[in-house]
């Protein structure tokens, strides 16, 4: 799985961080998403797919 984020679409809600804190973080200064791990391990795939679905800015995508 390869994760990409679109920082221009990110609204800073932090939904992704609440779901998958090992994969996503937010910048301290403006809350924009920071990708910690663009190739998460298999046990995280399900939750990362959920972040793609529920991100309120539709800013996360994955290719598998």
């Amino acid at each position, binding site marked *: 799985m390869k994760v990409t984020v679109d920082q221009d*679409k990110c*609204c*800073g*809600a*932090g*939904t992704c*961080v*609440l779901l998958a804190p090992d994969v996503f973080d*937010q*910048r*301290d200064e*403006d*809350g924009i998403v920071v990708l910690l791990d663009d190739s998460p391990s298999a046990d995280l795939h*399900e939750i990362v*797919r*959920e972040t793609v*679905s*529920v991100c*309120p*800015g*539709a800013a996360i*995508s994955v290719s598998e």
Partner: protein
Amino acid sequence: MSTPDHVLVVGASAAGLVASEALRRKGYQGRLTVLGAEPHLPYDRPPLSKQVLCGNWQPERARLRQPEMLSTLDAEFVLGDPAAGLDVAARTVHTVSGRELTADAIILATGLRPRTLAGQDGLSGVHVLRTLDDALALRKDLLSCSRVVVVGDGVLGAEITATVRGMGLAVTMAGPQPAPLTYQLGTLVASRLAALHAANGVELRLGSGVVGLSEQDGRVAGVLLETGEVLPADVVVVAFGAAPATEWLAGSGLLCDNGIVCDSRCRAAAGIYAAGDVARWHHETLDVLLRLENRTNATEQAVAVAANILGADQPYVPVPYFWTDQFDAKIHVHGTLPIGADVSVVEGEPEAGRFVAQYRHGGVVTGVLGWNMPKQARLRRQELVAA
């Protein structure tokens, strides 16, 4: 109930799309139909009042998913055909074009319809903003106008005002509150918002209700305030609230009272669920019937409904959250901000344009608000008793 063979989702916006994705992610392999009133593939609404309206984004950028990703969902999208009626016992939806769609489980996610002013229908120059087509029509009118009035001092009205001003147009915001979003955010933050809009050149005419429109030759000419004053305008945006889109359910037997009334599982009747702006469900922790008009609720509730359709039998107990962007302010709110709450700044400096405020009511923290401090506000979610 046992796993359904056919799930019908009525509504092809954020809640409907995410419910469909959640069903598949949780292993549902049966037939899936998504019925949408608009002709467009699922798109996102928050950018309509901002990036799409100002023209920074082409409409395609507001799509929720690319077409190839939608095709992996293995769902049939029936678009441009609004739902017209529901037979609850048979679980059949009738559409405007005459389709009949019967399913084992139905998710109602028809969203909202903007409220309008008496006399605005058919009057050129008057707009609402709910759909992509609304946004594009408003943008087109803005590009050749000289004086805009936004009727509405809530989240949507304030965002539209900020965007229109950012396009270099003269704009007035009208509404009954003393400052924008006073009822949603309290006086301390609302007064800062008023100052922000004023500093950016917005004319604020707040504290007086709007009673109607004046016209000349079939085009709007002004907005009438209850004080008798007329605000001249050649474009008016009416953004003073919306109502759940439930009129098509009249006579269905479902209880619709400020939304589709649901139990704690977001279930309105056997096999019939509701999600998103249209759903008014029993929040068990807060012990109230709640309806939330915000983007994250649409998706979180959709995920909860998908799980319950597949047998999870879990109550939906979210921490409410919304954000709004106006000029350089990004405001994030977690929890609830009751009118009359004690508000204190717990981080940052309001004068520096970055702070977190904590809202206390009845001796407990009910909400936190970040002003240009989204991460710091989010980190305080655990302080909320409803969490």
